[in-house]
């Protein structure tokens, strides 16, 4: 990228500095520190202090690095660890990658998401604190997952990351991203820009576990560009309370047979304000998308669950399934599925339902010997039990265990 283009990006970011996001509560970014809390690099994840290991585990991050093809740890604003074990894989901080690969800025940086989308994307550009770059080289099938952890340990930190993930032609890449926060943190901000590029015939699965706490405000900005015969599968799990979350990841199925699947499992508790959706723009011929969400709202949590499929390509198909379960009279769920069709050979559908735990289901389980509490727990687990497809067996099992572990904690 030449200097003029770079200047242009910065100029656009500056102009968008005050641009409020179209959705979600507006955040005063000045409340969060943009300097300090630097951390020294680690030689291995095993060096993570014991007090933090549990927080990592809860976000699906394996401190032993076993069963991982690479590991990346960002603590507050410092990349403290990055190691890759698989030859077909590249993993490093985005800052480092931009120095190493000139093409990264030219072809990928801010190509899926406009830098001036809102004040958060602008802020990530203007006040970047790294992020990860993951690249699966052409034809490499890296079936063992890469893990990346974005970890906040210092109070009032504003963590701002820009991640770029590329699966080159006919490659396969599985990522576990865990976002976590140390107990001592009362308030923090996480802004995360993630740009995914799924090249022809490639596949990315992205399993993200958010393990935030009550004082954390979170604004991820995610876009995925999928070429011919490419597949992107996202599994998002949020089980812990947080202050607020607004995100609307968008998959652009550009190529023929491009496919995107979003599965979101949200247990909204405390005073959380969550505005969370997934969108698929089906441009390619026979491209398809499936958006599934399960939202459980308790305490005073307020959730808006969105889903949007826009059909533009010949014979494209998409389905949205939003289900909500209310466990409190002080909580709220708003379910907003949207479909847009611009040609006649499309097949788009949605189903949405919000309800309570059916008493007759509880009684049925009690008639098989469970107590009322056990029955409720079985029903909630069942509700959140989304068939997670497309993951390698070991990762699918692990994801299931992560979900169970998160559930154990909240129930």
């Amino acid at each position, binding site marked *: 990228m030449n200097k003029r283009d770079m200047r242009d990006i910065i100029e656009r970011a500056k102009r968008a500095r005050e641009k409020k996001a179209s959705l979600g509560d507006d955040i005063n970014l000045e409340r969060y520190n943009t300097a300090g809390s630097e951390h020294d690099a680690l030689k291995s994840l095993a060096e993570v202090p014991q007090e933090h290991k549990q927080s990592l585990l809860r976000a699906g991050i394996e401190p032993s690095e076993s069963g991982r093809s690479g590991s990346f740890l960002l603590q507050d604003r410092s990349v403290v660890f990055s190691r890759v074990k698989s030859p077909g894989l590249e993993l490093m901080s985005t800052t480092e990658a931009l120095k190493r690969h000139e093409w990264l800025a030219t072809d990928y940086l801010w190509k899926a998401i406009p830098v001036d989308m809102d004040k958060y994307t602008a802020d990530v550009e203007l006040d970047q604190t790294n992020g990860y770059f993951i690249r699966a080289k052409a034809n490499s099938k890296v079936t063992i997952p890469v893990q990346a952890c974005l970890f906040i340990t210092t109070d009032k930190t504003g963590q701002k990351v820009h991640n770029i993930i590329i699966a080159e032609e006919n490659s396969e890449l599985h990522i576990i991203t865990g976002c976590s926060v140390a107990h001592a943190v009362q308030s923090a901000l996480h802004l995360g820009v993630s740009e995914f590029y799924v090249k022809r015939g490639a596949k990315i699965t992205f399993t993200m576990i958010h393990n935030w706490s009550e004082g954390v405000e979170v604004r991820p900005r995610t876009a995925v560009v999928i070429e011919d015969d490419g597949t992107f599968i996202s599994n998002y799990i949020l089980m812990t309370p947080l202050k607020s979350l607004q995100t609307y990841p968008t998959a652009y199925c550009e190529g023929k047979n491009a496919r995107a699947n979003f599965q979101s499992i949200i247990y909204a508790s405390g005073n959380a304000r969550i505005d969370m959706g997934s969108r698929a723009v089906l441009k390619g011929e026979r491209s398809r998308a499936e958006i599934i969400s399960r939202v459980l709202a308790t305490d005073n949590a307020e959730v808006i669950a969105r889903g949007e499929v826009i059909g533009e390509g010949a014979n494209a198909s998409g389905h949205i399934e939003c289900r909500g379960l209310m466990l409190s009279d002080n909580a709220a769920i708003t379910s907003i599925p949207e479909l847009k069709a611009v040609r006649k050979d499309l097949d788009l559908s949605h189903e949405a339902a919000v309800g309570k735990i059916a008493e007759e289901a509880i009684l049925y389980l009690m*008639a098989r010997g469970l107590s009322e509490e056990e029955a409720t727990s079985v029903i909630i687990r069942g509700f959140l039990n989304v068939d997670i497809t497309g993951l390698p067996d070991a990762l699918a099992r692990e994801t299931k265990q992560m979900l169970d572990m998160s559930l154990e904690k909240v129930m």
Partner: protein
Amino acid sequence: MNGKIINMLEIENLTVEVAGKEILRDLYLNIERGEVHVLFGPNGCGKTTLLLTILGFPAYKVKSGSIKFKGVDITNLPTNERVKLGMGVSFQHPPQIRGVTLGDMVNIAQGRSEAAIDEGVIELAARLNIPYEFLVRDVNLGFSGGEVKRSEILQLMAQSPEFIMFDEPDSGVDVENIELIGGIMSELLDRNKLPSKRVRAGLIITHSGFIMRYIKADRAHVMLEGSIACSGMPDEITKNIMEVGFEKCVEKCKVK
């Protein structure tokens, strides 16, 4: 039985309200260990209400009377406590539960909620012609009438209770499967044992009486407007109902 016969179920003077409306009135029913009773009656007479009251569902308010199970007064016990004492039920219209499979239900009925669908479960299901693919389906979601019945019986096989209530086990079941279900019900209720060796007891609710061709009962009752209007030998009562209908059957009963 410790040298003396103990009643399995003993209902006295039972009056039950549902949503403020009296459905059962001064009902008496005794079922001894080793006995199978069949309860006939027209739609809406209170058969299912009786069953769900015995099971202790909260919508069924006992206004007077008592229910004893194996000598224990269970009138005010929650459903799961009653089930733990050894009672089980095959529901007529069980609810759908998303994300909870039939296999999960079988494990729950066996008292092992966290278990996977293993060989034992698969073998049990095979006896009812239930394939593995069916065990991993969400329970009752999109099940046909006959599938619901087989699913219910499978859960009872897993639970193996001493006292079983069946609510219309034959409705919606095809001819091919009714004999199978009748056979397994007979087994669950010790019907294949010598009368002196029978311990388990049952109460079968049937509107059509069709299932009684495949399982032998010891005693039959006809329910009308919330009370047991007549009781007698199953064959005789069945014959009367078939010939003259419920009301006339009760009249004949009274004349005797």
